[in-house]
């Protein structure tokens, strides 16, 4: 791995240098949120100390600088996901808001009675509940594509569920529970062949792999800054210009208007049409710095490191009795998220016990209750990697996990 030195990299992350309960922090909850390198924190601090202002509005020096920084960040995101135009990049609060924007704006306008919306059974609640609402309001049908026993998609199932009545197909490129990477390009193509649009939830993929919206030919892509080294409070909605242009605005207020009369309003052009109120410049600046950091590390290195950790963790978990893994075992088309259960141990007890060893993992339904029900797994534990994790951390995690059953009174 060219120039990749994880110990050096970790020095950029103050949070990772901490001790928790007297032990070095082993942070394995990266699918929930990631830590921030100093360069991201500095970029935000610098913004506030030198350029803070309301963009788009002031003709004064600070206002001009803030506008420039904000628009540079937009252009940086455009490059990062290879959108055709920076006008196709809308800044939102997080992936959830991006999905709601599509549902409220596109969904309310273009979904009619009897239309179908298709999602995977493994979707995050953010990609389910907004569609339930649209389906309910529009008397449309929300359909689920189920997974095969390898936690992957069968194209037959896809082709059964996506029909001529399907208007929207929305799916995560990578599952935040199973780690499965789904063939979104093929699915988008199939959706298009049926006259539907394709929405890709990139919350778990964009931080870990090169996502090229033109290559995928997806109509929309959503993701969150905080899961990719950026700050909380900033997310992205990418949409094809033709679609965004025919969609009505969602949030209304300052900055997204052209002319406001007492009774009527004309709206600004893209992207401002969808960005109401004072924008989060700080968030955009932080996200840009995060993208800079990620691209400096390089997706090749990121992938190599994460896959090495994933292979190792899967191997060690499979050696353990009482462990059941939910997700693909082979490494092909899977990412660094591993969900598992430990026989006889409730995941909250698992969390509490490994926490005393400094290990942070996630317990519960991972915001994917329909999947948990489908898998008949009421609650599970999850570890998830980012490139700054190490093999030693996997060892510490495994050691701590080995202690759980003893603590809970089992013989072994």
């Amino acid at each position, binding site marked *: 791995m060219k120039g990749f030195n994880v110990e050096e990299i970790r020095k950029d992350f103050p949070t990772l240098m901490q001790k928790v309960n007297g032990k070095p922090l082993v942070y394995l909850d990266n699918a929930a949120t990631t830590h921030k390198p100093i360069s991201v924190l500095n970029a935000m601090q610098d913004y506030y100390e030198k350029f803070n202002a309301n963009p788009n509005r002031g003709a004064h020096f600070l206002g001009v600088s803030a506008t420039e920084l904000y628009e540079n960040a937009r252009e940086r995101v455009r490059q990062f996901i290879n959108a055709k135009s920076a006008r196709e990049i809308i800044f939102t609060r997080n992936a959830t808001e991006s999905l709601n924007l599509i549902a409220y704006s596109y969904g309310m306008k273009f979904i009619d009675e009897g239309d179908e919306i298709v999602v995977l059974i493994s979707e995050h609640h953010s990609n389910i509940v907004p569609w339930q609402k649209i389906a309910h309001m529009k008397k449309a049908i929300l359909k689920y594509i189920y997974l095969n026993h390898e936690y992957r998609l069968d194209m037959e199932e896809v082709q059964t569920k996506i029909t001529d009545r399907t208007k929207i197909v929305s799916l995560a490129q990578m599952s935040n529970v199973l780690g499965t990477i789904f063939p979104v390009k093929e699915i988008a193509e199939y959706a298009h062949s049926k006259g539907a649009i394709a929405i890709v939830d990139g919350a778990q993929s964009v931080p870990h792999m090169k996502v090229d919206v033109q290559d995928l030919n997806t109509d929309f892509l959503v993701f969150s800054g905080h899961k990719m080294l950026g700050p909380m409070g900033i997310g992205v909605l990418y949409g094809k210009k033709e679609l965004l242009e025919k969609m009505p605005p969602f949030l209304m207020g300052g900055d997204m208007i052209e002319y406001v009369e007492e009774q009527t309003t004309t709206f600004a052009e893209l992207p401002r049409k969808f960005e109401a109120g004072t924008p989060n410049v700080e968030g955009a600046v932080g996200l840009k710095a995060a993208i800079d950091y990620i691209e400096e590390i390089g997706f090749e290195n990121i992938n190599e490191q994460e896959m090495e950790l994933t292979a190792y963790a899967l191997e060690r978990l499979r050696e353990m009795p009482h462990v059941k893994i939910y997700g693909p075992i082979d490494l092909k088309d899977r990412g660094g998220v591993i969900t598992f259960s430990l026989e006889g141990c409730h995941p*909250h007890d698992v969390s509490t016990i490994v926490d*005393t060893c400094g290990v942070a993992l996630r317990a519960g339904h991972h915001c994917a209750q329909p999947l948990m029900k489908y898998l008949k797994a009421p609650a599970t534990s999850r570890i998830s990697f980012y490139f700054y994790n190490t093999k030693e951390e996997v060892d510490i995690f495994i050691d701590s996990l080995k202690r759980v059953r003893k*603590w*809970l009174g089992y013989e072994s």
Partner: protein
Amino acid sequence: MNLNELYTELILEHSQSGHNRKHLDHANCSERGHNPSCGDDITLELICDEEGTIKDASFTGSGCAISQASTSIMIDLIKGKSKEEAEKLADIFISMIKKEITDDEELEVLEDAIVFKNISNMPPRVKCAVLSWHTLKEALKNKEKS
């Protein structure tokens, strides 16, 4: 709070032994309690006689060791008590967790349940410990109404 205090023998015994985990055929009062965020989900069943004494109690459902143990210990404590006494005990338990009552003598009536005294130092587990006690209060309140 360290793990020794949390996963005591008493708690493990209760969470693993099934002596209160069963379905009561002649229950005349039953109440479901749940924590959506962690998935703990129990149903408490009671048999109360005419005088308002809790003759028998049990629970079904699933959850972590803490919620299961807390439920089982509570059932041992309230069996044979009057509804008023049981409610009072639930209030004392909840006050203990909230650190409103800290005096050990006052807490003595909780018997084994005093083992959860320090759970408030582990905020994410507080909900697990109090679930059954809140459920008990609900059960008695609804019994009253019906």
